[in-house]
């Protein structure tokens, strides 16, 4: 697919600027099918360098399905088929030669429910660097673990019990451990699928603070059902409805004067 942006703009129905100048990820005319059912319908969007973007929309709108396309998590579902083009730094991530293991290191993911491995706190974070061979020696590995836990805002809470099981932490701490695990392999993009939906407001605030900080170094795509959260953490917001990308724009515009009436209806609680 070699369409230029201008030509693409004519072919899509999304309201707002789907393209950004410094795109890391470029999704073009993406369709996703579960068997015969079309879950994503001709979605085109850029994810910018070091931008935090939220995907919002009612349940079943396809926002998580689309998010999972970015690191080929949908490959794990037999009946799922992805069409169109998605590139990371102009490299087609769906190329048959792409190995998904390093891809998922470059595009890390944090899930709705914290899912630490049944290992120690240290080993949870060290797992990725070990399998990807990122540490030269033991002290380098320890340094990566410490830096990752610090960046995830967890170091001060766990540095005296790194050998304790990760599953013994509170829900919010477990989620930050998962974020530390994701950033330990130096990703370029972090995908977050409702990362705070299982957390209390304090733990949520800590994750949101973390997202603000991580946004200085990584591109972050966050799927959330909380519109307040989307408004708080992201600079750009994309609204999905029935598999289509209805509108994308600056978060402050989407939440104060959306252009599309479906966006307006959703964010003001008139459809769900």
């Amino acid at each position, binding site marked *: 697919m070699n369409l230029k942006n201008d030509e693409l703009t004519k072919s899509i129905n999304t309201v707002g600027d789907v393209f950004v100048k410094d795109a890391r990820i470029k999704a073009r005319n993406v369709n996703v099918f579960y068997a015969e059912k079309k879950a994503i319908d001709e979605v085109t969007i850029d994810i910018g360098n070091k931008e935090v973007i939220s995907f919002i929309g009612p349940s079943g709108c396809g926002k998580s399905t689309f998010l999972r396309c970015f690191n080929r998590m949908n490959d794990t579902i037999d009946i799922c088929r992805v069409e169109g083009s998605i590139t990371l730094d102009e490299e087609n991530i769906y190329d048959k030669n792409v190995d998904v293991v390093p891809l998922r290191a470059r595009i890390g993911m944090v899930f709705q429910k914290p899912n630490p491995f049944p290992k120690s706190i240290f080993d949870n974070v060290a797992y990725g660097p070990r399998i990807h061979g990122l540490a030269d020696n033991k002290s380098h590995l320890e340094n990566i673990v410490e830096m990752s836990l610090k960046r995830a805002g967890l170091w001060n809470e766990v540095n005296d019990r790194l050998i304790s099981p990760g599953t013994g932490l509170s829900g919010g701490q477990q989620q930050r451990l998962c974020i530390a695990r994701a950033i330990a392999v130096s990703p370029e993009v972090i995908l977050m699928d409702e990362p705070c939906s299982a957390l209390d407001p304090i733990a949520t605030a800590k994750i949101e603070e973390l997202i603000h900080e991580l946004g200085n170094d990584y591109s972050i795509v966050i799927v959330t059902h909380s519109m307040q959260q989307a*408004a708080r953490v992201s600079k750009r917001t994309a609204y999905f409805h029935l598999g289509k990308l209805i509108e994308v724009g600056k978060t402050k515009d989407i939440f*104060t*004067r*959306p252009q599309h009436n479906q966006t307006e209806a959703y964010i*003001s*609680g*008139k*459809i*769900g």
Partner: protein
Amino acid sequence: MENKHIDSSFDKDLNKINNNLLKLGTLGLNQFEKCINNFGTQNLEEINQVIAFDEKLDELDDKIQKSGFEIIALRSPRAIDLRRVIVALKISTILERIGDYSRNISNRTKVLIELNYTDLPGVNIGKMGQKTQQMFEDVLESYTNEDDKLAIKVRNSDFKIDKMHTEYYLEIISSMQRNKKLAPIGTHLLFIAKNIERVADYVTDIAEQIYFLVNGKMLSDHRPKADETSLKIPE
């Protein structure tokens, strides 16, 4: 106002603030209309009623501020809902201020009656008041129907009030220069004319808020102005 929230109690809250604002607008208009009429009829009983009634406007404004504050805190309104609440709070404050001007005009009219006021040549306060009253009526209609075109028309009408104000200002000063005994009357007339001009300004502010409510953006061009009283030296 469109009422289709999934949570219908949200609609009730929005309707409540909207209805109270319309009520405040109607009361504010009545107060202004009466104070302008009373200026002409010099009916002391009616004047005192306007002065006493002003506290009702203050109370209603307090009620609107409280309910708007609660909607923001409890409902987290967004988009048109957010604009509706913010605009209601702003307009309510403006209407309360217009009420204060109606009371002030009434107070000064009482003094003018004591001073045995008669019209000064070339000064028609009643006409200026009626034109402002028409703007006030139009802006309330514009709010009720969310009619941004009418709001722009109201905004552009302010120019005429400014011109009248400048004209009357010069005439009143001129009368006072000719006859120094007219200074007390002239001074109150200057304030009354200025108060009416300020009411027209406030009505224009409301019109601009309505434009923002409907369109989600402020009017970008500058408001037409013709009040030159702060620039002109009377001859």
